[in-house]
């Protein structure tokens, strides 16, 4: 019996201690808390790393000046980086943790549509503003007044890829290989297919094949594709799979071109893919090689700090976070009540009509989606992503 009593007393003590510690925390100085819902492990860890790097750089810049100036008062920033493991269910959990436990005023990320679509729903339901840097699937922001993004949409990217490939490769027929369990890849593949067939007639997409996220062997799909003799292969896939797909296609005797999408644009693509990727094209958000102005300044600072060229995700995270900070400033005074501040940020975000980002200037439509230009880049002999064409809506 005494054991039970002792245990109860211990429990009460531990809980009261925890309570004291929790309440003690709220007394420290005011900070603007922003959450980052990013993939630091899982299928695309480089994406999470690039996001965190860009965010850290921005935070250091602003905090070194004493913080963000809101309504005449400088408030330091505090960023919470949480790993969503590149999984949809983890992205929802991370969003909930950031909202409920950490009490952030807004969330940047997730990056992939696979995570951004479900996490967007969570943020919208919990009335917390979310800005996805990299997600291009329309469903992320659709009918969700609390969700915004910094990237263009797949219904725009699809035609960009279609038109460029038709012109560049002088192509009449195409084939697609996509990841069926990834919202982004599947959505873009379908947009591409309908777009291509509307331009070049029915059945001009001669093969439309899929694979799973964890697959490593694509030889059966590629055999089918190569055998149907397309003019080029469209691969809207993540960079890690792209490296395997292109290598295996070359092993199977394919010598034709590939066309890729913005998920190729990671700084890790060339480390993994090597010489097989040289000469391929993909549509993306910005071209690091030959950039000018603020974009060049960002690239130089990032390169000096992290010893690599910032990829799309890094640049888009920079833009997304700055967009958010802009909204916080626009909202006027900083409200210490988290819920009220979230509402103020959302309202301010929805009124931003024009924003000069380093990935191009963006105007926002009623869904919270930016209207901005896309670029097509070519992978040159040194593995640099070189500007080939710019397409504006």
């Amino acid at each position, binding site marked *: 019996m005494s054991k039970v009593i002792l245990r109860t007393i211990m429990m009460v003590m531990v809980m009261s201690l925890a309570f004291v510690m929790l309440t003690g925390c709220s007394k420290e100085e005011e900070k603007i808390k922003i959450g980052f819902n990013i993939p*630091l*492990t*899982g*299928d695309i*860890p*480089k994406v999470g*790393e690039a996001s965190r790097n860009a965010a850290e750089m921005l935070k250091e810049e602003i905090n070194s000046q004493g913080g963000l100036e809101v309504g005449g008062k400088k408030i330091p920033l505090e960023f919470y980086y949480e790993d969503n493991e590149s999984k949809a269910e983890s992205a929802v959990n991370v969003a909930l943790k950031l909202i409920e436990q950490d009490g952030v005023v807004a969330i940047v990320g997730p990056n992939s549509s696979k995570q951004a679509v479900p996490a967007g729903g969570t943020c919208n339901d919990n009335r917390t503003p979310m800005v996805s840097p990299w997600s291009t699937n329309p469903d992320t922001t659709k009918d969700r007044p609390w969700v915004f993004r910094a990237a263009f949409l797949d219904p725009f990217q699809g035609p960009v890829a279609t038109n460029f490939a038709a012109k560049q490769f002088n192509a009449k027929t195409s084939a697609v290989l996509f990841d*069926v369990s990834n919202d982004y890849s599947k959505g873009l593949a379908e947009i591409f297919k309908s777009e291509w067939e509307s331009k070049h007639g029915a059945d001009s997409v001669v093969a*439309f*094949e*899929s*694979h*799973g996220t*964890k697959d*490593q*062997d694509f*030889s*059966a*799909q590629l*055999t*089918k594709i*190569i*055998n149907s003799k397309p003019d080029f292969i469209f691969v809207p896939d993540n960079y*890690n799979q792209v*490296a*395997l797909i292109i*290598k295996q296609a*070359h*092993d*199977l*005797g394919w010598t034709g071109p590939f066309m890729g999408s913005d998920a190729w644009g990671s700084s*890790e693509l060339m*480390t*993994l893919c*090597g010489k097989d990727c040289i000469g391929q094209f993909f549509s993306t958000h910005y071209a690091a090689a030959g950039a000018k102005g603020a974009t060049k300044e960002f690239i130089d600072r990032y390169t000096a700090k992290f010893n690599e060229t910032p990829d799309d995700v890094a640049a888009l995270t920079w833009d997304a976070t700055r967009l958010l900070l802009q909204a916080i400033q626009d909202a006027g005074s900083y409200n210490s009540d988290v819920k009220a501040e979230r509402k103020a940020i959302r309202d301010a975000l929805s009124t931003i009509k024009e924003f000069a980002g380093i990935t191009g200037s963006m105007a926002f439509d009623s869904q919270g989606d930016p209207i901005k230009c896309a670029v097509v880049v070519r992978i040159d002999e040194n593995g640099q992503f070189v500007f080939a064409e710019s397409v504006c809506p």
Partner: protein
Amino acid sequence: MDILIQNLLNALQWGSFYALIALGYTLVYGVLLLINFAHGDVFMVGAYIAFFVATFFLGFVDLSPWLTLALTVPLTMLLTAGVGVTLERVAYRPLRRKGAHRLYVVITALMCGLMLENSNLALLGASRKKFPELLDKVIYTWGNVSVTNLKLIVIFTAIAVFILLEFIVTRTKIGMAMRGISYDKFAIPLMGIPIDNVIVFTFVLGSGMAGLAGLLFAMSYPILEPYMGALIGWKAFIAAVVGGIGDIRGAFLGGFLLGFIEVGVVALFPSTYRDLFAFSILLMILWIKPTGIFGVAKTTKI
């Protein structure tokens, strides 16, 4: 016709990996009646060991790729065998000594697999490793059929490993001891056979083959990540069961069968249905023969 031969080659290569991994499951099960669920992750560790050995010889010692490959093969097999034996020593043997039910040993195996994955994640981080090229790639082409030298090496290695293991188990003394343990593990020590040594030998064989599979896999699909062993490990386990777990011919046949079914489904149907169809077919095989193709209910296995 061309497309048929091409897919046949694809299936042989992909099936080779299943077969090589399934052999490890089947050896351990044959001797200990233990499903070593950590085996897929031992395969993953094998691929990483191959990566470190190869980069060490290429980068630090500066050997030619050919010499590196010649050294990487035995070293990888040896080191991976060490990992397998360590698992047996620290995880399975203490439980066996205490007379734990097989169920607990299987759960221990699952946990060991997760530990291997996560310690890899903690030590090396989540970013992927690119396996260096050790072989000058040659593509042979006949008509529309293309095959690389690596693909042929993979297929022949799988067949050679099968013949070697079949020989060891059925024609040698230690093989006879392995079969004996599977038959009656209480009577065997009474015959003066060192049961622990035989079990260690089994793990050496199984893990060594997983190491070899890891190396060949890393050469064929040169991107390494901590979770690469999980899915292929499960599938190889299913292949071993369908072939008749505990039987070396079964593991070999099951591995190739799964390879052929997976490639065949993609060739004939939309690729989205691959795993659905593949595993439905395997389920049907188990309906007809629940002990697997070569499995015999409740007799000696291996």
